[in-house]
């Protein structure tokens, strides 16, 4: 589970949004989109907690994968200063992912730093012939990333909260006006967005949750959430992907 990977490249692709490509054998175990890695940002004991970061792109031929994250805290700030050739200690791959089911036309909805895992998902869905439409929400034009990458896979619509690009408002201000009929949806983003999307779309779907994590592998009980049936789920091991309606948002 614990692996040392090597940084291939690191780049700031939007305001405080970093894309880091890592290389290592363990990439071969990464098959399911929506899984995450738990990254140690420093070899010292200054930062005792790892950072959970979703996998945004997997390239098994090259044994490389990509993580895309926002560096807005001390730990992710340290991560953003890693250079090509540096070693990164991570636990991977962790969590369940999105089921990649064949057939139909699906809606992929992402908000902010929830967008990255949806890229690998869309890639895999397109690879098996699923038609994808993407709706991505950001705060402002400076925060937008991966628009072109998603556009290469299917129709891609952008919403910004401040109206500086695309539709002014939230992702639901876009999805509300879509005329296509979709077979299912996949979403990742802030809880308020997941709730709005789940409530407004009358189709089945999958959502990916985030929470402050301790261990990342089911030991510490930090990242629990409530299931609709009254039981508890651990986001790190039972999730982060859940079926719509399974979790009380």
């Amino acid at each position: 589970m614990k692996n040392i990977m090597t940084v291939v490249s690191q780049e700031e692709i939007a305001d405080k949004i970093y894309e880091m490509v890592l290389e290592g054998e363990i990439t071969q175990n990464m098959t399911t989109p929506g899984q995450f890695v738990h990254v140690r940002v420093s070899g010292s004991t200054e930062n005792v907690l790892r950072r959970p970061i979703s996998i945004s792109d997997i390239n098994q031929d090259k044994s490389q994968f990509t993580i895309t994250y926002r560096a807005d805290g001390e730990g992710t700030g340290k991560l953003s200063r890693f250079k090509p050739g540096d070693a990164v200690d991570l636990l991977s791959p962790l969590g369940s992912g999105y089921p990649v089911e064949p057939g139909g036309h699906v809606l992929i909805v992402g908000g902010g730093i929830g967008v990255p895992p949806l890229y690998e998902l869309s890639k895999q869905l397109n690879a098996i012939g699923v038609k994808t439409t993407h709706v991505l929400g950001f705060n402002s034009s400076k925060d937008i990333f991966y628009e072109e990458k998603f556009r290469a896979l299917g129709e891609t619509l952008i919403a910004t909260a401040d109206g500086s690009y695309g539709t002014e408002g939230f992702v639901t201000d876009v999805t509300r006006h879509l005329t296509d009929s979709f077979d299912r949806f996949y979403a990742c983003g802030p809880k308020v967005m997941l709730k709005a999307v789940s409530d407004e779309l009358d189709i089945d779907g999958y959502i990916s949750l985030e929470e402050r994590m301790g261990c990342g592998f089911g030991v510490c009980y930090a990242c629990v959430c409530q299931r609709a049936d009254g039981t508890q789920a651990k986001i790190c091991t039972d999730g982060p992907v859940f079926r719509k309606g399974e979790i009380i948002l």
Partner: protein
Amino acid sequence: MTNSKLAVSLPGLELKNPVMPASGCFSFGEEFSKLYDLSKLGAIMIKAATEEERPGNKTPRVAETASGMLNAIGLQNPGVDHIMEHELKFLEQYDVPVIANVAGTKIEDYVSVAEKISGAPNVKALELNISCPNVKEGGIQFGTDPETARKLTYEVKNASSVPVYVKLSPNVTNIVDMAKSVGDMADGLTMINTLVGMRLDKSGRPILANITGGLSGPAIKPVSLNMIYQVRQHMPDVPIIGMGGIATTDDVFDYLSVGADAVAVGTMNFTDPYICPTLIDELATRVNTLNIDHIHDLKGRAYS
């Protein structure tokens, strides 16, 4: 595999080595059993058991701090009966003594859990949790008043069929008074539990849903070393399992030096899930390098 230089005997416990995971940082071992052989550990301190299932606190439940972390899990556990039927049964396949952490909100609950769980074949000792800072009732209130702590220790000791170690809270004015009040009745002490703390977000609001949490990790090691040192000066013979921020073999040596007999590793299990077997392997090498007969030759160096 047993290295006689590392083996430690304590009431109820024959430890292959003095290193064990601390309660709350190892769940009930199943997740770690996929990473390494649990029989390698000196012992396992399992997550706190209460009479009834507890759902725990609202999230967020953890926040990182400088060289440490805050947690306010809230003693989430499936209840003592479930733990005995499932979690402890699972651990029976390993050759490792279990120290069962017992928690509650009323004395009767502690007594009932202690009575039940001490009957499990692999539970070799209890750790009386009178110091959890994250539950509204019970926990720390038992651990901050010497008289209450003494009464609870007495009752649990009577109910338990295995030795009882009392886990002391650092959130007290005088740790020696607390240790003395329970020390003649308890079979040993474990020290220390977490220190109450809080962390704010950028908007000035507490990050933890519980507002406060227990501070653990390397940040608290100096506090723990001092408290063990102080207690050891007054109680030369009480068995002490020391904990608080252990990350390296030097940390283990520090704990032995202030008078601990064995150590527990907590937070660092999250940072490095392989920390316990790594420390055990390194200790075996280091006792040879140091050319000592037994790791306890390092015990008490701070005051002898």
